């Protein structure tokens, strides 16, 4: 009897966790394992109907993927560089904008609520609708962007293209920052609420100005939140699929060829799921390394602070 009670005490939590565990297995782990298996197979249209029986290709898919002298590898490497630049810029700009706006909105003034609501709109809009609107704004001949820059302000000599050529990187960055920064704003704003007001009062009494207060009190207090925020923003923008897909369609211009689109094209448009899976696995490994390295570095920093 006592044995049974003990069994129940020890076993019950596991029993309760079981459904979640099963779901997690089914929804995340199984597909991940299948994805990894796929990356070792030759999965073109000739084999997808019987993909379980598709011929093994050993490391063939990986070899093609990382052969940077051949077109598949070369474009992947290019896409990787573009994605890194895009993500770092997006994260940096989103963080700057979000933090500045959050600090600015700490003061109580008229219209603060309205401004907060306005700042959060991009976050609340359906991504597809928002990005397609941007695509219209960026049109060369009828878009608002050129209407303002060229027709009204006459800043450009000729109407530039925004969705073709090198400018497309800029267009993508603008839309991405516009869409993502409200999240940074929201998180930082929430974090600011938790900093005790008396810290600022004490600092003010000691004669610290606003800049000094931000540097000495606000930023250090935000640190734990920022560490998570920056990581999440980075992972999001690194994996962003919707923005480039809606903005450019299946074939993004070279300058804005993000990895997500690139992998999508490799697997779903050119029907080579094996190569696409290999690229996904490499990307996953890269992000795991980056995340682990980042977490390690930041936690070490925290310890030495403490």
């Amino acid at each position, binding site marked *: 009897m006592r044995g049974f009670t003990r069994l129940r005490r020890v076993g019950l939590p596991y029993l309760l966790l079981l459904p979640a565990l099963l779901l997690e297995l089914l929804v995340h782990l199984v597909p991940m394992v299948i994805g990894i298996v796929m990356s070792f197979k030759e999965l073109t249209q000739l084999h*997808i*109907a019987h993909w379980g029986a598709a011929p093994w290709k050993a490391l063939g898919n990986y070899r093609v993927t990382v052969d940077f002298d051949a077109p598949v590898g070369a474009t992947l490497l290019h896409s990787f560089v573009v994605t890194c630049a895009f993500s770092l810029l997006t994260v940096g700009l989103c963080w700057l904008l979000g933090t500045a706006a959050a600090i600015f909105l700490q003061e109580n003034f008229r219209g603060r609520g309205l401004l907060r609501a306005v700042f959060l709109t991009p976050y609340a809009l359906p991504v597809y609708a928002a990005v397609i609107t941007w695509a219209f704004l960026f049109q060369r001949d009828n878009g608002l962007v050129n209407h303002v820059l060229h027709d009204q302000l006459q800043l450009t000599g000729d109407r530039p293209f925004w969705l073709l050529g090198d400018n497309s990187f800029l267009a993508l960055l603008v839309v991405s920052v516009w869409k993502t920064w409200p999240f940074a704003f929201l998180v930082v704003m929430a974090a600011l609420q938790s900093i005790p007001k008396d810290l600022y009062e004490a600092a003010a009494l000691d004669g610290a100005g606003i800049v000094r207060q931000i540097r000495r009190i606000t930023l250090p207090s935000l640190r734990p939140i920022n560490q998570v925020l920056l990581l999440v923003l980075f992972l999001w923008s690194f994996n962003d699929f919707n923005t480039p897909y809606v903005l450019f369609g299946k074939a993004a211009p070279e300058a804005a060829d993000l990895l997500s689109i690139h992998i999508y094209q490799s697997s779903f448009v050119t*029907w080579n799921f094996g190569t696409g899976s290999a690229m996904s696995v490499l*990307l996953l490994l890269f992000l795991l390394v980056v995340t682990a390295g980042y977490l390690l570095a930041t936690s070490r920093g925290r310890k030495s602070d403490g």
Partner: protein
Amino acid sequence: MRILRAATVTATVTALAVVAAGCGGGTSFDDGGSDDSPGTLTYWASNQGPNVEADKKILGPELRKFERQTGIKVKLEVIPWPELLNRILAATTSGQGPDVLNIGNTWSASLQATGALLPWDRKNLDAIGGRDRFLAPALEATGAAGKDPAAVPLYSLAYALYYNKRMFQEAGISKPPATWDELVADGKRISKDGKWGLGAEGGQLTNNIHQAFALGKQHGADFFDRTGKPTFTSDGAVAAVKQYIDFMAKDKIIAPGNAEYGQNQSLRDFATGRTAMVLWQAAATTFAADGMKPGDWGVAPVPVPSGTPGTGRQINSMLAGINIAVFKNTRNLQGARKFVKFMTSDTEQRLLNKTYGSIPPVKAAQQDPAFNRKDTRVLRETLIRSAAPLPQIAEESQFETSVGTAVKDLFADAAAGHPVTTASVKARLAKAQQQMAQ
């Protein structure tokens, strides 16, 4: 982790489907069709009308007619074009597809290679009235040569040259161009004061391919050799693509802004009198929707070098259209065949093609006067005389993407004022070809 999820989405579907169906690794396709559920059919229709709702309205009464005749209820789903191929792919991997479906006819050989579609062997074709009922060129776009068709032609289309009569008159041009030289000359006379000679959809990969393919034929290039190897950098292919891009880069009869068009904006430009010509498949209904009267525009065959469309180097259109196919693992093979027979019957062919502005691939149905109006006559004659199917090879969809993207990039170069030379065209096509060979 969104990417990983995207890459494994098919895997999930498959895994779940395998569990649900209680069978291993997609073996279901080996069984062929059966007749376990003779009472119902599911039908995936491609979006042919102005929108999905319109298609439901058009097809609904016909499906009820079919139900009255056979007692088989058809569950209809209309699928927009951007989604259709991915949906078919997912259905193929999971084995959980519809019984009957529409496919773009250029995908025939690609989908045939998956082994998921019912082959239309002699017996199956005889069940719907036999091979001879169909237009021979349309049958060519139903799968690889020498194999049983993977689908049956349903709606056929071809390209024609649409021109704005008033703009032609104002420029003092009395008849539509028959050769490319005439087209360029006419275009140059029109292209001024914000008006342009020709429209293009530089960002639409499939349209790019269609134009490059027809021009390629005229330069004696096929984009693939007899063994199915890509030959994108052959002199003919390079010359064809360069000729198309040069309408913008050198001749300057296409507005640079067209380089980023991908949502049929060129048709709107045509309807609003900003562009005098477009090369399009059955554009009449779109022009009407944009406020043009039938008398405002004329239709002529797409130009050819000699002025007389025909075979070989006088091909002036890809053979466009929709095929109807049956999923091999259907649980209602009899019903599916009956439904295909119904949809390809003379009556339905006349009715549906008339509504959609396409041409019936069923010869008997073409006799209807609706297919002898000036615009439909041009399309019909092109189909019979001077249209050729895109290469019917398993890698067709890769071809569309890789060469379509190369043309898009070249248009972007031309629009930005970068020089477009034989060498630069060849380089882009070489890259596309290398991507095919991965």
